[in-house]
């Protein structure tokens, strides 16, 4: 490559890969979506159409919302080159705290919710402090946190379940977008929101492509671009329709969608996102480029704590009670979601959308296998094997 060519060597014209070539070079991203699609179709067929029944689809979203939300934070932690094993315990602890505050101390749900989120962030800060500034491996710090907060949950609840929560608080996970005009059982408002969402997505994509074309850097074949957008818009509208024919869009879906959008934007387009990837990719080089690597690591843990707190509130509101066992093992699902979604255990690599898809792959399998009556024992076995297979394919593709 580095021959002694004259300095003004001709640059090769940018290559325009064909459709198949494009798909091949982007197999990582589209492969994930494709596998989620295949898994959904598989269970849809196996369960004789139960999977995508409006009721079940609604449940699927409610069941997975807290995993998806935590996967957003976990992705940043993993990209920065760390891990957080404590999130399951934090979910339990924050849920318990919320119950104690609202039910036992009778504090209004708004200040209580804010206080709980703050406590989540504080827990993240406490753990991030040791990881970032004292260089204690995150595996150890958060393993300690896992034990500590599991214990504190038990202490806080005195071993009992505490509930029920105020009605308004329950709406966080059991509420739906209120419908303004109901037509024959169809929640029109929800459907309109779905349509609007699809339209916004297409618009953003078209605008992005226009900028790329202007600068001559688009490399996605036009047909592919159109097909991709048509499929995604179609799927969004279809799912919105399914949900609208039951109770409408769940509140928590809106929260989740906003967070997914926010975190996608932060990781792809902002300086802080860019710096987290650089930190995970090569910490020393990032530091020598003037990036405050320690502070950044600290912030990823604060963020993780905040999201784990939110997930704790959602989970408690869904069960309508705080139990000592809440959140048990959630960290495994969350971490698995990130790795199934293509994050690298050594840091620097991973996408928000991948983690979200990974979470839904796990969720659909959980849900589908439960409908099929597969026991909890073999569900675990299958999930474990899927995790291994997904990461194997990733590594295999990279080495090829």
């Amino acid at each position, binding site marked *: 490559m*580095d021959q002694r060519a004259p300095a003004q060597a001709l640059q090769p014209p940018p290559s325009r890969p064909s459709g198949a070539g494009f798909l091949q070079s982007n197999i990582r991203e589209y492969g994930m979506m494709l596998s989620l699609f295949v898994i959904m179709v598989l269970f849809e067929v196996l369960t004789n159409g139960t999977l995508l029944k409006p009721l079940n689809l609604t449940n699927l979203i409610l069941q997975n919302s807290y995993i998806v939300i935590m996967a957003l934070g976990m992705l940043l932690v993993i990209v920065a080159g760390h891990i957080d094993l404590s999130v399951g315990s934090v979910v339990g602890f924050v849920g318990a705290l919320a119950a104690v505050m609202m039910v036992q101390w009778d504090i209004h749900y708004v200040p209580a919710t804010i206080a709980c989120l703050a406590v989540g962030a504080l827990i993240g800060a406490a753990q991030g402090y040791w990881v970032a500034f004292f260089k204690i491996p995150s595996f150890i710090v958060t393993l300690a946190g896992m034990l500590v907060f599991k214990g504190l949950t038990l202490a806080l609840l005195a071993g009992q379940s505490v509930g029920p929560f105020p009605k308004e608080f329950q709406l966080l996970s059991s509420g739906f977008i209120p419908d303004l005009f109901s037509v024959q059982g169809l929640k029109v408002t929800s459907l309109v929101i779905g349509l609007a969402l699809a339209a916004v997505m297409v618009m953003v994509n078209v605008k992005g492509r226009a900028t790329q074309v202007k600068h001559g850097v688009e490399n996605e074949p036009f047909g592919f671009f159109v097909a991709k957008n048509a499929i995604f818009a179609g799927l969004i509208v279809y799912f919105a329709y399914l949900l609208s024919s039951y109770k409408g869009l769940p509140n928590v879906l809106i929260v989740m969608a906003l967070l997914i959008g926010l975190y996608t934007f932060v990781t792809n387009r902002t300086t802080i996102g860019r710096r987290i990837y650089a930190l995970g990719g090569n910490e020393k080089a990032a530091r*020598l480029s003037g990036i405050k690597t320690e502070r950044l690591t600290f912030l990823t843990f604060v963020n993780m704590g905040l999201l784990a707190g939110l997930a704790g509130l959602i989970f408690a509101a869904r069960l309508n009670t705080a139990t000592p066992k809440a959140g048990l093992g959630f960290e495994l699902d969350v971490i698995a979601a990130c790795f199934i979604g293509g994050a690298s255990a050594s840091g620097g690599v991973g996408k928000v959308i991948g983690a979200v898809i990974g979470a839904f792959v796990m969720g659909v399998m959980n849900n589908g296998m439960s409908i099929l009556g597969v026991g909890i024992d073999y569900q675990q076995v299958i999930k474990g094997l899927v995790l291994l297979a997904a990461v194997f394919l990733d590594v295999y593709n990279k080495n090829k």
Partner: protein
Amino acid sequence: MGAILEMRGISKSFPGVKALSNVNLTVEAGEIHAVVGENGAGKSTLMKVLSGVYPHGSYEGDIVFDGEERRFRTIADSEKIGIIIIHQELALVPLLSIAENIFLGNEPARFGVIDRSFVFRRTQELLRKVGLKESPDTLITNLGVGKQQLVEIAKALSKEVRLLILDEPTASLNETDSAALLDLLLEFKAHGIASILISHKLNEISKVADRITVIRDGATVDTLDCRAEAISEDRIIRAMVGRPLADRYPPRTPKIGEPILSVRDWRVHHPIHQDRVVIKGVSFHVRRGEVLGIAGLMGAGRTELAMSLFGKAYGKRISGSVEMEGRPVDVSTIEKAVDAGLAYVTEDRKTLGLVLAEDIVKNVTLANLPGVSRGTVIDDMQELKVANSYRQSLAIRCSSVYQQTVNLSGGNQQKVVLSKWLFSGPKVLILDEPTRGIDVGAKYEIYSIINKLADDGKAVVMISSEMPELLGMCDRILVMNEGAFVGEFTAAEASQEAIMRSIMQSTMKKTG
């Protein structure tokens, strides 16, 4: 006496670089044979060929040991017949004991169970031979560097050594430890063990060596016999550096202005051994449009000086003052140093310079993301424009700026790191070994870039271990040794002999 080792016509190439060409080395039985040469002359490569690190077939030429042609495929092959190499970086496991280290990978065991009492007794014996008074159970981490060196030698002796190769064995030792080590070599010689000693310390070499082979630019230039007549150090230095300066450097007419960066009384302590002073209160300045070279041997403290200036990226208990354009500036963090107009281009681009998994675009803008952002949002088209403009002006050869930097050649990677720092808008660039591991053609391009920077009114500090490069490029050269400047030459005064002499003289003053 007959030759125990003959290396005949050894040539070895790496992609783009010819490291050794037709090197001959003959070591006689029971002699101490010194191999000297500049950094990068090919000494270590030659020893790696000899010890089987580079297997037979990856080089040309023959190795004859004990009158038989040998073809080593691994280090184990060369060790089996008694060729043992002790590397500059010691290969001991710190948290294992002396005995465990000596027999590592070679444990006397029956059915996998180590014979502990044998190991203990044998280790005691070996430690006595090398004159180390420590229990075989002492952990390596509790020993000083000098004693660790002796453990390495004891380890070599445990393997029936016939030819001992020591790569810079005294580089990190103090005077007494060095003297003890050299005495040990003389004792081995009395027992008929031949040694190859690679060293920069010419006074040590003239003390123990029987013959000296000088390597320069990957070729043997001379073999001197010290037994017949005393060889002067000047004679060795001349052989080491005496090469004509070909037209390998682009011409430049310097337009030197007022001083930009002035550093005064800069003292730096070692980050772990905090009572060790690494940089001993140095002062220097560099002017607008000037290329200032810093010469010195490896470990002289040049990188440590540069990194400690750059936001305290190295060292502890740093003191001294820094002025930029006459005003004192705060360079206590990397961010502040960058803001003050400093840029440091590392010698180790793969581990310290690049995020290898990321593309060229993201690496180029990493040190100045606000330069392509509105608020905290990155404008990726602006970013692309920046990357493409550097691709063009620095002639980075790539399929597109979205190519991962891990797939670029060394020269192009270096250009990406340079782009990153140029985009940070520095007034002073410190380039640490800017052409290390780069082939000749790409070197010329890097030199041209450096000249362009100086012409644009920036100040360039160039740290290099390749003296011809400094002589060819710099307006002024400072010579560093053991954490202090020991010489300063203008372009007109500077010569390799003069630089080498100032290093050697300052070393001799210290070691007596």
